[in-house]
């Protein structure tokens, strides 16, 4: 049986109290949200924080709010609920689809959206779709509060711009215009409990149902130290009329927008080839959805 090292445990009911605890205990303390990542690392002896501060009793952190031009999701919302909320399923369907393929149902009932972002695994499922959706995160410490675009949040595997005394409180996703569609594909050896070999999230917005592409986002995951935009592929799409040929061109550019490594899950060449295929596929699905006028 894998045992956990000793630690002190606090579960404040208020966010301000959590911030105070973090600032007073300094680097000895760690946040615990769903625990599906941190408890595994502690059991394996990779880390042993002296203090754990749970966010589980701060009920506001599990709420989804609809604002004027955005929705904001509390960092402690569990992944299972992301796929259950009508608002998210209908208007941000790529987020719901990524949530459905994370881990297993048992993991999804504990794992949180905030935890998935802060762990910053190169193959994590939510960052690519949240980046495609243009999400920002709100970071709060005892003395300050700031918003950071997810595009600027990740530094590398396990590393982000979050400071040790900051708590990720909310994820803010802007409402998307009409004629927007999106799609997420995670390629793995099996359908559950799988870390992606390659994953691609695409989102496009048309100016009218049979019009040109106004905005395009393609985010590649598991092929670089962090999720990355396929920048040249995104650029080639803007202002063009969608077609199979255009998507092929974008897909082959996407191959060179990433720097995969060879590891146990796949080789460089295979991963690049899959980036091309998944980019093409996600774009055609996104196009189909965008034409319907549905909001993504």
């Amino acid at each position, binding site marked *: *049986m894998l045992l*956990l090292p000793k630690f002190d*445990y606090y*579960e404040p009911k208020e966010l301000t109290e959590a911030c105070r605890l973090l600032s007073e205990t300094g680097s000895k303390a760690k946040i615990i949200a769903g*625990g599906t990542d941190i408890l595994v690392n502690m059991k394996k002896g990779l880390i042993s924080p002296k203090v754990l501060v749970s966010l589980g009793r701060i009920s506001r952190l599990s709420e989804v709010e609809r604002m004027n031009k955005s929705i904001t999701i509390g960092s402690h919302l569990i992944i299972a609920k992301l796929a259950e909320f009508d608002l998210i399923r209908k208007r941000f369907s790529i987020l719901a689809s990524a949530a459905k393929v994370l881990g*297993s149902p048992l993991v999804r009932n*504990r794992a949180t959206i905030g935890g998935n972002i802060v762990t910053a695994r190169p193959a994590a499922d939510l960052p690519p779709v949240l980046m495609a959706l243009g999400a920002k995160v709100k970071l709060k410490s005892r003395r300050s509060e700031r918003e950071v675009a997810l595009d600027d949040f990740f530094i590398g595997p396990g590393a982000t711009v979050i400071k040790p005394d900051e708590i990720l409180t909310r994820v803010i996703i802007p409402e998307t215009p009409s004629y927007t569609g999106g799609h997420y594909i995670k390629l793995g050896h099996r359908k559950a*409990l799988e870390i992606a070999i390659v994953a691609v999230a695409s989102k496009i917005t048309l100016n009218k149902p049979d019009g040109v592409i106004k905005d395009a986002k393609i985010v590649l995951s598991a092929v670089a130290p962090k999720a990355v935009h396929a920048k040249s592929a995104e650029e080639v799409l803007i202002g063009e009329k969608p077609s199979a040929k255009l998507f092929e061109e974008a897909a082959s550019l996407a191959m060179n927008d990433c720097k995969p490594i060879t590891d146990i899950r796949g080789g460089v060449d295979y991963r690049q080839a899959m980036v091309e295929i998944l980019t093409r596929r996600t774009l055609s699905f996104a196009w189909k959805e965008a034409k319907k006028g549905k909001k993504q």
Partner: protein
Amino acid sequence: MKQIIILTVNNKVYEIAVAPNRTLTQVLREDLNLTGTKEGCGIGDCGACAVIMDGRPVNSCLVLAVQANGSDITTIEGIAEREKLHPVQQAFVEHGAIQCGFCTSGMIISAKSLLDKKPKPSELEIREAISGNLCRCTGYQKIVEAIMDASQKMKK
């Protein structure tokens, strides 16, 4: 330092003093003697430790007992109605869905949670619902058949 927590397990209320570094699996097995919940991997991969916590099946090896304070928990021991097996349990027996039995508690927890939410699931939905539960013996087919059969019988 130990903390006092209150757990409702299988409709019985317990007040227990626990150290924060003990998992829900440990407290159920070692303090409450509910050894039907198994620990396989201890890191979320196998689902042998699954219990229903506030209506949702979770891996109890990745829940601190202190995090479960105030929760309502159902373990495999709370699935049957006294001597009468739950239809899912009965179907597992009849279909030969149990071999060594190590995965069974977790499988039944996941299956029951599914049927509570969705009494008539498709085969795909069943396979998805047990996708966090590993079985190294049966090859899953008999487990899936047992859950389908249970869902049929429960409808009547």
